[in-house]
């Protein structure tokens, strides 16, 4: 009897292993399919419609229905909005990560953590709605403009990347051994000197990862940006004028672009470009972490 049961357990074990490996394999297949399909659809514009990649990347003339596919205004728009978010949200997020890891009394941290989790949970379209109904009129009344544009998008993105940057920088600082803090304090350093000269330099690769994932979140953000950008497909001349980004232009135009046309292929090219940027950032993170070990 024991033998029969042991046999069954052995069979279950093998069956379970097959199921678990299959489920893990789905991840590999999924990303391979996404890369494959978007690489194919994203390059149709060049191979099927014979639009030159240089025109796509560097021309500022965009007229989807009229056959002009210069995506430079959107690429630059995405980069400026993301750059703004990193310059503002990056240091702020790292600072708050430092606060949680080094300063916050446990009671304060326990009270504030749920707030950060709620910030993560708020849908991007709600951030966009807040930006549209609060921030855009505010900017408009300060600068006497319409209020929508890259400044509004940059501010919204700065707030949206905060939770990512905060929690990852906190993790990065927590893995620095306490002996470093004690050693620094024993040498007579103040807490700020310990933070700025010992902890932050020691955790720099982890902090870099936090900021890179912030970039990844910002560059792929769609609706929060679309709602406050004003969506003018023109090359950016001012942070205060309506502009467009890769994500917002895709979501604006996809409904109007008929299947199989060069117009739709151009939108897929933009999506493929976003995917390549995201994959590039992942490789960058791998590189940052490998250097540490």
């Amino acid at each position, binding site marked *: 009897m024991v033998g029969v049961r042991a046999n069954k*357990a052995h069979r*279950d*074990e093998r069956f379970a292993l097959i*199921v*678990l*490996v299959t*489920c*893990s394999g789905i*991840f590999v297949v*999924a990303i*391979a399919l*996404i890369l494959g*399909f*978007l690489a194919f*659809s994203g390059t149709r514009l060049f191979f099927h419609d014979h639009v030159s990649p240089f025109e796509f990347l560097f021309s500022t003339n965009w007229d989807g229905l009229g056959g002009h596919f210069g995506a430079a205004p959107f690429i630059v728009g995405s980069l400026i909005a993301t750059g703004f978010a990193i310059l503002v949200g990056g240091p702020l997020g790292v*600072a*708050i990560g430092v*606060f949680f890891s080094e300063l*916050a009394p446990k009671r304060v941290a326990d009270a*504030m953590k749920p707030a950060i989790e*709620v*910030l993560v*949970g*708020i*849908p*991007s*379209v*709600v951030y966009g*709605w*807040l930006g549209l*109904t609060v921030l855009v009129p505010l900017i408009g009344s300060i600068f006497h403009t319409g209020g929508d544009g890259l400044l509004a998008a940059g501010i919204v993105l700065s707030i949206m990347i905060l939770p990512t940057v905060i929690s990852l920088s906190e993790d990065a600082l927590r893995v620095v051994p306490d002996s470093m803090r004690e050693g*620094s304090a024993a*040498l*007579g*350093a103040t*807490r*700020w*000197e310990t933070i700025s*000269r*010992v902890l932050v*330099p*020691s955790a720099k690769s982890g902090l870099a990862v936090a900021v890179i*994932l912030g970039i990844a979140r910002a560059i*792929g953000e*769609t*609706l929060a940006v679309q*709602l406050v950008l004003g969506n003018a497909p023109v090359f950016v001349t001012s942070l205060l004028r309506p502009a467009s980004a890769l994500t917002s232009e*895709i*979501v604006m135009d*996809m*409904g109007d672009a008929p*299947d199989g046309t060069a117009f739709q292929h151009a*939108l897929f090219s933009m*999506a493929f470009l*976003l*995917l390549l940027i*995201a*994959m590039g*950032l*992942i490789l960058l993170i791998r590189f940052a972490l490998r250097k540490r070990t």
Partner: protein
Amino acid sequence: MAQAVARVASSDTLASNNARSRRIVDRIATGSLWTAAGSVVALLVIFIGYLFYKGASVISWHFLFGYPSSANAGGGIGPEIFNSFYILILTLVFTLPIAVCAGMYLQEYAGPGRFRDLVQFSAESLATVPSIVMGLFGLLIFVQMFHWHFTALGGALTLTLLNLPAMMRVTQEALAGVPGTYREASMSLGATRWQTVVKVILPSAIGPLITGVVLVSGRIFGETAALIYTAGASVSFGKSAYDFNPFHTAETLAVHLYSTHREALVPDADAIGNGSALVLLVMVLLFNVVARVVGRQLTIRFTGKAS
């Protein structure tokens, strides 16, 4: 690492004897960090306060359960709320088994090796695919290739791809919290690895696992960009807008907030936006509270200790 400490020792600020200015700098830095952290909480309080202030007057029985209107004022968001939950549940049906199994494999079975690295790398890559890009992939596969048109099922499958990595991570973290002695004790009693995972480890990890699952569910509930071109931006035109057919179009509440503003065909688009934004926010708050409460209860029931 020791270099960093040496840097402190050799720094000229420390060598010179201006202890007072160093203390002042420390105070200023400490104050700034407190201010930075406080400002984020203040920001959240302002968000919540503003959304309640603007949205509360819109909320009514009719708004929450009524049908949306295509041209006149007074449209509701009933079918949209239904669709959000419907697509969430469909998504969980696909996501949970796959992600939990993959998480169990990586955490409990896989030794270091190529396959584990490959799965890990795939999950990280999948996690950074922007939502709109995933939406276009869903459009390519489910709408254009399978000819489903905009469907709840297509939307759910797209969200599955988007959320597999987060669910897997949640599983891994929950399992990692179970002490190694549990595994050793179970296996020394003659249990196989699978029996150990299912009967010992999973029940011990159930609290944090459910907490994580509910938090990710909150994010699925509010997902927008991936759904516009997969599940569509209009409610079902079937017999009722409350439609269980997974092959019918299904606009969720988050998509509705976007499309109402973009099309702005109804005169009260702003009011509907404010009301929808408030409902979305309240749902996020609810998911957060439920995650904590249920997670704690399950931990107490399955492990007998409060954590």
